[in-house]
């Protein structure tokens, strides 16, 4: 007593809550758990766990090295479990249209200037700036959330992840 233990979740150790219905449909609450989603997804599969019109929050299993992505607008990455390295690059020429929503996967590392590197641990939030290209890397299986707009790489598999 007096010593509080803050309970963060991890892929190895999470407890999932849920919806108890009095008079409603559980599907209305689109209830999932990011660690469970990451656990059951392929590496770097960017699974939408929340969506509000065009905007999404993606949860991803961070494992090994991701593809390169480019995005016309800001995105943010939040590490929920593990450690994730972010490499940022300023492309020599624009890789996506200015109006393009969401991240676009690139076939290869693009030409451009090195912007820098972030090493994010649990609870750290990093900027993936508009107009840059980025790649993520995790030595050990980790879990990230990405604040972005639904785009070509966003996976929507609600029936698989949500309480119904």
């Amino acid at each position: 007593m007096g010593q509080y233990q803050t309970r963060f979740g991890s892929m190895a150790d999470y407890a999932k809550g849920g919806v108890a219905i009095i008079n409603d449909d559980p599907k209305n609450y689109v209830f999932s758990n990011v660690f469970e989603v990451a656990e059951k997804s392929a590496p770097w599969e960017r699974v939408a766990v929340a969506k509000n019109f065009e905007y999404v929050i993606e949860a991803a299993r961070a494992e090994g090295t991701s593809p390169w992505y480019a995005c016309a607008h800001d995105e943010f990455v939040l590490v929920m479990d593990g450690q994730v390295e972010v490499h940022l690059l300023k492309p020599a020429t624009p890789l996506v249209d200015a109006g393009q929503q969401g991240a676009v996967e690139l076939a290869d590392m693009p030409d451009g200037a090195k912007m820098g590197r972030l090493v994010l641990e649990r609870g750290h939030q990093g900027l993936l700036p508009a107009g840059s290209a980025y790649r993520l890397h995790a030595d050990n299986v980790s879990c990230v959330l990405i604040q972005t707009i639904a785009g070509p790489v966003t996976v929507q598999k609600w029936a698989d992840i949500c309480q119904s």
Partner: protein
Amino acid sequence: MAILESATAAAAAKPLSDNVVTHAEVGPIDNATGYRTFTAGDFHFRRDEYFARITWPAGGSHVAPIDAFLRALMRDVAWGFFYGTVNFDDVVGTVNHYGEVTLFAGTYNDAYRDAGRDFSQRFPSEVLGPLFKEMITDWTNAGYDPFAAPMETGVPWGAKNGSNLEAVNRVRVAARRMVGLPGDTPVRTDDNGFPVNRMFADVDQRQPLVEAEPGFEGEVSAYNLFGYLSRSDVTWNPSVCSVVGESLFCPTSEEFSLPVDHGNDRCEWFITLSDEIVWDIRDKVTGRPRAKLVAKAGDVSCMPADIRHKGYADKRAMLLVWENASNRIPEMIAAGEAPNVSVTW
């Protein structure tokens, strides 16, 4: 608070509705209690040692324990009436029309409405907002902080006894792009007045490694969000930490209970970042219980647009509230085109 300045500015430019009431008045100091009375249209507000007393025409009246009332009023003031409905309790609250605001009694209570005993009036936000601000200022005594958790503040009871301007005048925190960027909201430290909360003493305070190449220092950026939240001095008060267009990450630290029953006018998402929060879900219009939600670290849930929610946390918890602040949404709501749930499958 997570309403974009642009939304408020856009709304303020609209002409007032026909039925809008502009009368608001700060009354004299009561001899017995030392508190002022307040009038908004035909609503009257009075506080005494234990209660806020609210009356409205045709004999309408309501008594609210002053602790709960001040905690709710503080949020409504600090949030600029927030999104949708802010129920102070089962009877009284506000509905935000973004530029105008409805003050109501019984409107979102089945029994009052069925009996034809509900009453509401619509005000310009710039009329009701400052009145509520004066009310929370006058009714808050020295030593009591309506934003704080119960174990971290004094008691609100008794006759007028000083004030707590520092507490009620806290400026809302809204990053424009992301916390920690140059010129944006700074990270929290002991030195700038944000010590780690007693319930988050075990939260890692190390900052991420950030290596920016020359010329990219303003864009290569990261910070410790969990550390930032562990240093919040307020509860149940979302602040914007990162912005993608109209998508706002509004994390907050939660302890005891949400002082209002929030009935959003659009879908609102919660991601529990730490510990556990229990949510009571009731129908937005009738107030009848619909569901109970237990959310643990990593849990994601959508609050549909047709409910009201009130949360409970015994251990201080970190909650990511995710809002869509789009200006288009109020119009879609008015046109009946906004979905109750943003995802179906």
